[in-house]
C-alpha cells in the first residue's frame, strides 16, 4: 500500500480523538458503546479492505469519472451529490467543533466570527491546492505532529493518576446491545480511506492489500478507539463522564508537565490536534470541492483561462460555516454530529455498492 494511503487513514483516525466522536461514544458509555466499538473495528476494517480492492480495479481514475463513464446520468449525479454532502458535513462538523473548542478554552474573549474567519481563510487557500500538493502537505503535518501526539498520549498512559479501576468498571458495561449511534461514530474513524474517490487519480499503481495491511489498519483503529473512549474515563470517572462537553480537552487539562516549558499540557495538546484536524478538514473539503466541481461545471464562468467555479464554491463553503457557527448551539451541534455519524454506515454502503455497479458495467 502506498504510504499516502496510510496517511489518509491515520489522519482521520487521529483527528477524531479530540473532535465529536468521543463525546458521542462517552454519551453512550452505559448503553452499549463497547460492543458497538468492537463491531465498528471489524466492519470498518472490512470496508477499508473492500474499498481498496475495488479502487484497485481502476488505477489512476477518480470516482466521478468512473461513475460518469459507466453509469447513466440519473444515477451518477445524485450519488455524487450525496457523497459531496457527506464530505462537506464531515468537514463542517470538524470545523465547528474546533471553533467551539477554541472559543471555550483558548480565546474566550475573541468573537466567534473572527475565529471562524481565521479558520475559513486558511482552509479556503488550502482546499484550492492541487490534489498532489494536498498529499505532500498531509505528509509534512503528520511528520511534524504525530511524534508530539504520540509523546502526549504516552504521558496519559504512564501517569499514575490514571485509575485503571474506572476503566475496568467501564468495561463491565459490555453486557449491552450495541447502540447504533455509537456504532456510527466509531465507524467514522475509518472514513479516511474514502478520500480515495478523488485521490485515486494519483495512484496509478495497484495497492497491495494483504493480511499485514489489514492487521495494521484494524489494530491501529482499535488502539485509537480504546484511547478515545477509555482514557477520559480513567481520568474523570464513569458516572459523570457524559457531563463533559469536551471530554478529551478536560482530560488533557488533567495532565501536567512539572518541568516542561508549559506546565499545562492542554495548550500543547490543543495545538497539536488542531494541526492534525486542519489537514483532515482540508482533505475532506478538498474532496467535497472536487465532487462538486464534477457535478456543476460552469464552463462559461471563466476569467483569463481560469475556471471561476471552484472559487465560488469555496466562498459558499465559507459563508455556510460562518453562518452555522454563529447560529448553532452546543446541543444542536451535538445532535447534528450524532445524525451525521448515524449516516456513516449508509454512506459506506452507497459508496461500495455504486463501485460494485461500476465494476460490473465496466466488465472488468
Amino acid at each position: 500500500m502506498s504510504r499516502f494511503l496510510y496517511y489518509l487513514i491515520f489522519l482521520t483516525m487521529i483527528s477524531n480523538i479530540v473532535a465529536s466522536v468521543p463525546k458521542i461514544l462517552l454519551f453512550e458509555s452505559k448503553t452499549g458503546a463497547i460492543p458497538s466499538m468492537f463491531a465498528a473495528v471489524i466492519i470498518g476494517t472490512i470496508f477499508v479492505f473492500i474499498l481498496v480492492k475495488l479502487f484497485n480495479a481502476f488505477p489512476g481514475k477518480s470516482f466521478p469519472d468512473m461513475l460518469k463513464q459507466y453509469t447513466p446520468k440519473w444515477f451518477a449525479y445524485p450519488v455524487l451529490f450525496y457523497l459531496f454532502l457527506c464530505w462537506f458535513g464531515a468537514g463542517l462538523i470538524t470545523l465547528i467543533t474546533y471553533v467551539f473548542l477554541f472559543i471555550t478554552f483558548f480565546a474566550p474573549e475573541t468573537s466567534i466570527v473572527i475565529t471562524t474567519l481565521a479558520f475559513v481563510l486558511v482552509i479556503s487557500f488550502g482546499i484550492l491546492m492541487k490534489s498532489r500538493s494536498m498529499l505532500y502537505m498531509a505528509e509534512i503535518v503528520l511528520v511534524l505532529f504525530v511524534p508530539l501526539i504520540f509523546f502526549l498520549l504516552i504521558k496519559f498512559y504512564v501517569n499514575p493518576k490514571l485509575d485503571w479501576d474506572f476503566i475496568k468498571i467501564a468495561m463491565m458495561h459490555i453486557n449491552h446491545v450495541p447502540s447504533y449511534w455509537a456504532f456510527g461514530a466509531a465507524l467514522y474513524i475509518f472514513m479516511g480511506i474514502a478520500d480515495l474517490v478523488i485521490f485515486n487519480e494519483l495512484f496509478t499503481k495497484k495497492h497491495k492489500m494483504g493480511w499485514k495491511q489489514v492487521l495494521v489498519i484494524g489494530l491501529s483503529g482499535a488502539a485509537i478507539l480504546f484511547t478515545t473512549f477509555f482514557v477520559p474515563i480513567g481520568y474523570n470517572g464513569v458516572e459523570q463522564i457524559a457531563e463533559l462537553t469536551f471530554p478529551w480537552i478536560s482530560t488533557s487539562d488533567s495532565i501536567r508537565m512539572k518541568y516542561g516549558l508549559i506546565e499545562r499540557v492542554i495548550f500543547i495538546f490543543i495545538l497539536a490536534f488542531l494541526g492534525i484536524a486542519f489537514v483532515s478538514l482540508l482533505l475532506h473539503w478538498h474532496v467535497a470541492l472536487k465532487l462538486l466541481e464534477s457535478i456543476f461545471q460552469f464552463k462559461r464562468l471563466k476569467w483569463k483561462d481560469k475556471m471561476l467555479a471552484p472559487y465560488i464554491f469555496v466562498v459558499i463553503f465559507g459563508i455556510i460555516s460562518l453562518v452555522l457557527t454563529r447560529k448553532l448551539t452546543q446541543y444542536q451541534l451535538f445532535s447534528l454530529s450524532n445524525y451525521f455519524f448515524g449516516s456513516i454506515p449508509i454512506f459506506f454502503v452507497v459508496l461500495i455498492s455504486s463501485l460494485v455497479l461500476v465494476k460490473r458495467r465496466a466488465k472488468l
Partner: protein
Amino acid sequence: MKRRFKSFKVIVVVAIYFSCVSILAGCGFKDIDKRVFVTGIGVDPSEKEKGGYKITLKLSLPVASIKSSTGPNYEYLVYEGETLAEAIRILETHTDKVLEFGHTKMIVINEGLLQENIKDFMDYFVRRSDIQLIAWVAAAKPSAESILRVEPAAESAVSSTLINFFGTSGTDSPFITSTFLYEFRRNMLSDGIDAVVPLVEASEDRKELIVNKSLVVKEETKPLELDAEESKYYNTIVNGMSGFSYKAESDDLKLILNMERTKIHYKIIMVDEKPTSINMNVKMVGVIGQSNKNLSLKDLKEYDQIASKAVKKKIIDFLTTVQKENFDPIGFGLRYRSMVLYNKNTISEWRKAYPDLPIDVSVDVELKGTGAIE
C-alpha cells in the same frame, strides 16, 4: 509593457500587505498589564446569610524584577455572596484589572463546607474552562481566608509557599496528601471511592502553614479527619509514597525504617459474586534509619520480621478505623465494581457488605541495610 505590468503587480501586493497592518491594531486580547493573576481562591461559609459563600481571592501583584523585590506582594479581595459566580462577578468591580484565573493553582475550602452541597460550589471551578483542572484542592482550618492570608517568612518573591507543599516539586513527604481538582471531582462523584483532601492549618502565630492531616470527604456526611499518622498510611497505600518514619518495635528494640519503595496490591475476594473479604499485599523495600541498639547486618532477616509485623498492625489499624466510619478512601468499592459485570444492584450490594468485610493484610518488608553504621 510587460515589465511595467509586473511592477504594477508588485505595488498591488505591497499595498495589500500594508493595508493588512491596520487590521493588526487590536486583537481580542487584553494586555498583560491590564490583568491581575489570581493564584488562590478561598471559599468560606458566609457569615451574614445562611447558605451563602465568602470568597477570598489571592492576587499576586507583579514585581519589576526578582532582585529588587524584598518579598512577595499579595492583595486579597473578599466578598460575600449567595453563589460563587455572583461573588466573583462583584469582586471584578473591586479591582481595575481583569481577573485572570488561568494561573489559579490553589483552591482552599473551609472544612465546614465539605459535607453538603459540595457539588454546588465545585461545579463553578470545573465549569469555568480557564481554571486549571490541575489546581490543588485543600481543606482549611479554621477558615480558608485565614490560611490564604498567611505569608510565611521563608516565602520568596516569585513562589508561593502553599502551592509548593503539594506535588513532589517542593517538599516531598508522605504526610502530605496532594489532590488535583479533577481527582477530587472524580473521586467525590464516583460510587465506591471517597475523595481525600489535605487539611491545611496555620501555626498559632499565623506565620507558618502546617499540612499533615487529611480529610476524607463524602457528600451528605461529616468528613472524617485523618491525623498525621493515618495520612501517612493513606499516602503509602494509595500513592506508594514512602518516607522516613515507619516505626517498628519489639521487646527492647526500637527501629525507625526508611522505606524507598512500596508496592501495594489488593483485591476483593468473592463468593458467588458477593464480596466476602478484602485481601491486601504490601511489599516494602528500605533501610534502617535509626535504632536504639547496635545492629548487625547478618540479623537483617530478623529485623525484616519485626518491621513487617509493626507495619502490618499499623495498616490494619488504619483500614479498620476508616471502615468503621464507613468511608472508603482507598477505593475498595471501585475494585469490587471492576470485578463484576454491571448490574443495577452492584453498588447497593457493596454498600451493604463493606462495613463488615474482614480485611487481610500481609506485609513483606525487605531491609537492604542498616544505614551508614551497623
